[in-house]
Structures are given as C-alpha cells and as structure tokens.
C-alpha cells in the first residue's frame, strides 16, 4: 500500500452559475424536505400510516443527503489538491460485480446489466473504494439515460498496460458538445431537477485521473453510447 498525494494541478474551477446553484440547491434541499416533512408529520400525527412510513423515509432521505454532502466534500478536497488516494493491486472482476449489484439496487428505474470480462483477469492499481464508486456512477448514469427495463452492458478488457472498463447504453446519442463536456462539473448531460447534482461524473473523472487513468464518453453510428475509463494495470501484470 502506498499513499499518494495528488500532484498540485490547476483545479477545474469555473464561475458559479445560476444553473449550478440550482442543481446544488435541488440536490441538498430535496432530501432535506423529506426529513423535515416526515419529522413534522410525526409530531402532528401518530396514525398507523405515518408511524409506519415516516421513520424509514427519514432514514432514506438522510442517506441521500449524506451522499450529496460527501460528493461536495470530495470534490472540494480534489479541487484543493488535498484528497488522498491509496492505490493497491486489486482484482478488477469481483469489484465490478459488486459495483454492478449495488448500482442496480439503487437505480431509480428497473434496468439490468450484462457484464462481460474479456481477456485475462486483470489486476489494476486502484483504490478499491473509489473504483467501486466510479463504476457505480457510470452505471447510474447509464440507467438514468436508459428507458425503463433497458439492458446496460459493462465490458472490461486489458489493452496495453491499462484495464479498460466501458458501460454502454441505448440512450439518446451524445452531440459533440455533450461528449466534450460530459465529465465537466454540472454537465449539461445531467438534467436539472433530477436526483443528481451534476457533480457525479466530474467527481468520477477526477478520481480516475488521481489514480493515473483517464475517462471518455462517445456515441457511435449504431446509436450506442459508451462511458468508460482506463486504469493502469498493477505492476505484476504489466508487460
């Protein structure tokens, strides 16, 4: 295990815009509404339905809010060059399987995922926790872009000294502008008013970059869109 402090680089700072503030406000205030609302209902009523529904809803909303706060703090730490990552040699396939199961369970709409691992089993140099989070973000992005019941494909393969992971969906193909800005903060790809803040893809990109990798987004003529990332293979596998 080695701790690595990311080398100082210019953070991708941009002026706060009204749409960005709107997304943040939505992301923070919506779960807060649920917590405040259900808590107040509990103080007003003790009927069976309120008692049965409110505590669980409060817990779920608190979890959602925690996720948004964590995203904000992590992005802040990345941009301030103070986020530490701990890359270790990890086997990719079990992490991908775990990430897929977790992401499908969280998906706002029912989707299924095909997981395909090509070539030899890969070990990558990555922080396992962040790796699972990156895959989860890309899967959720694909689920949000897909119609209900759609199948999302995840493919992992080794190419040169990198493991490449791609998530394919049949959602609306990206324009050139969307492709170029897909991983920006408050990307226009993420519709306002949804359950996302628009920071998720940006955070995924920066976490990949901190681990020596890169991301991409592209649509092809067949109508498929791929969001992917590549991470360096662990030293024992290179060559």
């Amino acid at each position, binding site marked *: 295990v080695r701790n690595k402090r990311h080398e100082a680089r210019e953070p991708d700072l941009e002026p706060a815009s*009204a749409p960005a*503030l*709107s997304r943040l*406000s*939505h992301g*923070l*205030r*919506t779960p*807060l*509404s*649920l*917590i*405040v*609302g*259900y808590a*107040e*209902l509990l103080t*007003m009523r003790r009927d069976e*339905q*309120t008692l049965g*529904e*409110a505590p669980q*809803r409060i817990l*779920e*909303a608190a979890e959602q809010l925690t996720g948004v706060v964590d995203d904000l703090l992590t992005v802040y730490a990345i941009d301030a060059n103070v986020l530490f990552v701990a890359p270790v040699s990890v086997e990719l396939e079990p992490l991908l399987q775990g990430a897929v199961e977790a992401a499908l369970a969280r998906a706002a709409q029912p989707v299924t995922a095909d997981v395909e691992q090509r070539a030899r089993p890969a070990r990558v140099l990555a922080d396992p926790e962040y790796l699972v989070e990156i895959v989860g973000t890309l899967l959720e992005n694909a689920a949000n872009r897909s119609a209900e019941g759609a199948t999302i494909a995840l493919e992992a393969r080794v190419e040169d000294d990198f493991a490449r992971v791609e998530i394919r969906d049949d959602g609306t193909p990206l324009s050139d502008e969307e492709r170029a800005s897909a991983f920006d903060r408050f990307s226009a790809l993420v*519709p*306002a*008013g*949804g*359950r996302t803040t628009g920071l998720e893809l940006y955070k995924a990109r920066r976490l990949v970059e901190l681990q020596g990798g890169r991301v991409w987004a592209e649509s092809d003529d067949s109508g498929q869109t791929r969001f992917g990332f590549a991470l360096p293979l662990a030293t024992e596998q290179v060559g």
Partner: protein
Amino acid sequence: MSPISILLVDDDPNVRALLRLTLPPNEAEVHEASGVGDALREIEREIPDLVLLDWVMPDGTGANVLAELKRRRGDLPVIVLTAELDARTRTTAERLGADAFLTKPFSPLELLGQIERLLPR
C-alpha cells in the same frame, strides 16, 4: 363533503409520497404527475381543484404548467413548491399567477394552512 381534487406535480417520487401522506385521504383525492409533460396530459384529462407544483423538473419548468393552468382556469389555486432560491423564480411564478410560493424544505403544517386558505372548507 366530497374530497377536493389535488394534482401533485413533482419529478421526485419521494416528494410526491410525502405530499400524499400530508394530505388527509378522506379530504383529498390525489392525482400525480412526474413532470411537465405528464402534468399537461393530466390537465387535459381533468382540471383539479388545486395544484401543488414543483418548479425545476427534468423535462421543463413549472412555468409551462402554471401558464397553461391559468389559461384554462384563471382562478385555479396553484401552490408552487420549489428548491429554487433564486428570487427571479418567485417573481416569475407570481407574475404567472401562483397563489402561494413555498420553498423546500417546507412545513407540511404550513402547506395545509395554505390549502385551507385557498380552498376554505
């Protein structure tokens, strides 16, 4: 006394669930719309007695729905419920005829008070 018909327009199903629980089932017949397009279709089918309207939704803003509601029935009570803090949102909603404007997080008690004010029983 027959229940009042209320249309909930919000893209977040969890917010709609909270609003449904807030509205007493014996007093309100609740209909739901998950976005602007859905709301416009619902309005086409039936004009409710009151509308609770989110403002920023993935397929557009509440302004589209509010304008259409007021065009069809100018005195239809509409309460805007939004996470938007921008004062321009409130100005726009009021200019389009919103009868009340609550920001999220909102108080269910205050919401029920606004409904009572707009539709006294």
